[in-house]
């Protein structure tokens, strides 16, 4: 079972050196436990572009699809047998990146 973990933030580029070190250590732990799938940091939502390709010509719009006070500043994709394991792991992840996290299950195909 895979879970998407969004890192919740309200400020841009707010990560610190200390946080980066803690996140690296946490990622090593994810890899060692076989939970690592993928992870990445995201640029500020203000530099995003919305695409609507459903019409004849694709339509591009500047900015995020929804203005929000909080957004995803990064994410993990993890592998865990169930939500209890995911929650226990990511409680540590939350401590490492010093942010609140949202754990969201991927649909089982």
């Amino acid at each position: 079972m895979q879970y998407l973990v969004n890192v919740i933030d309200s400020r841009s580029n707010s990560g610190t050196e200390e946080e980066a070190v803690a996140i690296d250590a946490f990622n090593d732990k994810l890899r060692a436990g076989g939970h690592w799938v993928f992870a990445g940091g995201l640029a500020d939502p203000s530099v995003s572009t919305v695409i609507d390709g459903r019409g004849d010509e694709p339509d591009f719009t500047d900015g995020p699809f929804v203005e929000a006070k909080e957004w995803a500043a990064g994410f993990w994709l993890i592998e865990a047998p169930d939500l209890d394991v995911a929650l226990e792991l990511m409680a540590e992840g939350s401590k490492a990146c010093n942010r609140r996290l949202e754990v969201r299950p991927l649909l089982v195909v």
Partner: protein
Amino acid sequence: MTTLRRVTAADDALTRAHREEWARVVATLAKRFGSLDLAEESAAEAFATAAERWPVDGIPPNPGAWLTTTATRKAIDRIRRESTRDARHREAHLVYDTQPEPVGAVDDDRLRLIFTCCHPALAMEARIALTLRMVGGLGVPEIARAFLVQDTTMGARITRAKAKIAAANIPYRLPTADDLPQRVSGVLTVLFLIFNEGYLASGPDTAPVRRDLTREAIRLTRLLHELLPDDGEVTGMLALMLLSEARSDARVSSTGELVPLGQQDRGMWDASLIAEGHALVRERLASGQPPGRYQLLAAINAVHTDGDAPDWAQIVALYDQLAVLDPSPIVRLNRAVAVGERDGPEAGLALLDALAPQLSGYHPFHAARALLLVRLGREVDARAAYESALALTDNAAEIAYLTRRLARLAAR
């Protein structure tokens, strides 16, 4: 046997089986099929079949086994009827659920069911609804009535909780030994909320004491105690509920008014519930283990129900212990009231007034203040305090009590 007698006997057997076997049937099926939804639907179908068959065929020798077997057949039929995609999904769960369980806790499927329904990733109101439905076997309309919401709202709440359990893969598993105390505490919170909603119903249109809810909470807590007999906090919670329930008949007067503990007719207390509660408190004391929050609350209630009048010095000492574990303003409010009884109203009032910033929106704070102010002869302040309390409560029996106190004050 006449037909009528047979029907009555079957009804009785079915009522008893529903009370005793519902949780076990749901729990067994949830384990086997990995789906709470399927377990609930199939259990309900099995009970409906029993209602048809038992009056005609007679009561089976082992009603629980009959119900489990019937529910299992219904579940298999249902899986066969459903699309292959759903069936595959369920098979995947099935494989996962056969993983070995952590050791160290009692192995009973009903315990798994309780922990799943009270999972911390679910909203509190969903935990309460799910526990009453899946473990308690209450119908959706009954639960909706208990919490004063529409049937459809309650139905949607339960459906959404089940959907989250399935989609997020909340496991149907006993917590590990490390997690156990915290998870048990989460279950106790749910049971206590159910009890308290019955003990002091919050709505303006409900009876002030809802015995259906307090009894259901006690029944569920008894089950948890049976499954985790060595857990001190579960024992403490059961004792606390029994000692509170024992006073129910004396708590509301014939005119529908709340009667404070000190003025209750002790002859109306249920002696057997009090004896049972006291025995549980003594059992915890004898264990020599440091008491948790619910054990201390139970001990306080045991002192209140012991002898002809409470030993206030002992109650203050117990609140002192409780305040260390739980320094919440509500614990400090109760401690202040006990100090007021032990050392006099001035001492109690000084402690209470210090809590005003946190508790000015909480009606028992104003009611407790009013009582102390009356004892100090400060009638104008007492009247204002009663009025603040009245403005903050919806409970009919409390309103009646506070209104009478206020009227008596005005008449002086």
